[in-house]
């Protein structure tokens, strides 16, 4: 239930190294009256912090309605005393990040998105090369959000980061494969969105009648397999 397997020993030194010990620069920002946004220095630290907070909730020492991991933060919503937790966290240490999952999800994709030409220009490559570069990358789900089944996938080198569109589209189709910042994502259903669209997949990212409902969850490895390409 807790999803914290492999994280029982908080004093251990195995697994992905470099994130154990007190986290320098951890900031706990108050959000409204009953939430806290804990900011750390890296995605790996955010993952370790998230795992630790899930462990505390499972053992009954953290009462909170929502624990929402993200790129460099974990949001805690529905706290009775956010200020007290903020000072507790400042004094605590983080365990190492859990190892990545072994499973690789393959998503078939057609690189036919309306923003391929813009991305090619931003990357300084041909339009054909956009799909080639993207499909050659192994991705990992850093966290989920935006919509049910939407994973934020990391893996593209930093030189391929792109801005969001200045004006979000009011409607992006389901299955749209998109880029923004360091991330790739797939829109699980039609929704408003500000990401750059490079392709389309037929994969079902979310089905609430399926177990699990979400195809992608934090830690999942992902590859895009082009169809109808050169």
């Amino acid at each position, binding site marked *: 239930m807790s999803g914290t397997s492999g994280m029982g020993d908080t004093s251990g030194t195995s697994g992905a190294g470099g994130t154990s010990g007190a986290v320098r620069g951890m900031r706990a920002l108050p*959000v*409204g009256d009953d939430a806290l946004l804990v900011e750390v220095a890296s995605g790996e630290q955010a993952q370790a912090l998230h795992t630790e907070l899930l462990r505390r909730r499972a053992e009954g020492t953290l009462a909170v309605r929502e624990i*929402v991991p993200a790129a460099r933060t974990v*949001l805690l919503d529905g706290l009775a005393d956010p200020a007290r937790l903020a000072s507790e966290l400042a004094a605590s240490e983080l365990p190492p990040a859990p190892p990545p999952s072994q499973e690789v999800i393959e998503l078939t994709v057609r690189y036919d998105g309306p923003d391929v030409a813009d991305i090619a220009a931003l990357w300084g490559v041909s339009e054909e090369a956009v799909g080639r570069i993207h499909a050659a990358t192994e991705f990992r789900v850093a966290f989920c959000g935006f919509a*049910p089944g939407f994973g934020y996938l990391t893996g593209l080198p930093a030189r391929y980061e792109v*801005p969001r569109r200045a004006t979000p589209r009011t409607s992006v189709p389901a299955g749209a494969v998109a880029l923004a910042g360091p991330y790739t994502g797939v829109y699980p259903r039609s929704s408003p969105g500000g990401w750059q669209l490079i392709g389309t997949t037929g994969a079902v990212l979310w089905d*609430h009648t399926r177990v699990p409902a979400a195809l992608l969850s934090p830690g999942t490895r992902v590859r895009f397999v082009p169809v109808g390409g050169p």
Partner: protein
Amino acid sequence: MTNRALTVVRAGALTTVQDQGRPGHAHLGVPRSGALDASTAALVNRLVGNPSGAAVLETTLNGCALRPCCPVTVAVGGAHCPVTVDGRPVAWGAAVRVPAGALLNVGTALSGVRGYVAVSGGVAVEPVLGSRSTDLLSGLGPPPLTDGATLPLGDVIGGHARVDVVPQPAPPAELVLRVTMGPRDDWFTPAALRAFTASTYRVSSASNRIGLRTEGPALERAHSGELPSEGMVLGAVQVPPDGRPVVFLADHPTTGGYPVIAVARTTDLHAAAQATPGTPVRFVPARRR
């Protein structure tokens, strides 16, 4: 076993099923959803003798028309509007008996935006992740009502309230949202922070269940970079690149990449649900409780 149901004769501009939503799934990207004007949804439920978590109908501007196939008690609240049963005027904001086969019409709002229609037994569509709410961002829950649709009703478990009419707040002539600043107020220039609390914005017609959009002075950022996506709360006042604040309502995305300049008190969001386009909006700094 029971044949408790109602037929949608006129769905209206946008009528959805709403209860108290599905909090607790934000880490999967599932919005909380639920009635925008949660206090009114609870009130009309009480009037018909339902538990406060029973599913009601949330209408938008022009109401809806319903024909129950069994005798029911209904109560209409929220946006003020004429209510009729088979063409005869009946009370708004009160428990009303509707005979089997009669036509309940919830008329166009005279003021306010969202109407709430509670029916004895509650709307008993299949729950998704513990809630019957329609979530317009994620598509979870039942789709918005359509003409001719049939909605199942639950069994009646309580008698209706013994009050005729209960007071309900009038829709705001001016929407005042008390806010606590941050977590990303440091992303804005001092001039933008002053403009945020000193200006009068107006409710944009582009507002929906996801967010109350505003028109007014654009807020200038002190940073030109992009904020890594982070978790979002109900009432977050997010500022997209066009600089106009958006107040997150029930169907808001669970994470977002635009900076949150402040967070509005959730108790003030009930009034936000009833603010018509053009209504003046002021953001008033409040002490953290």
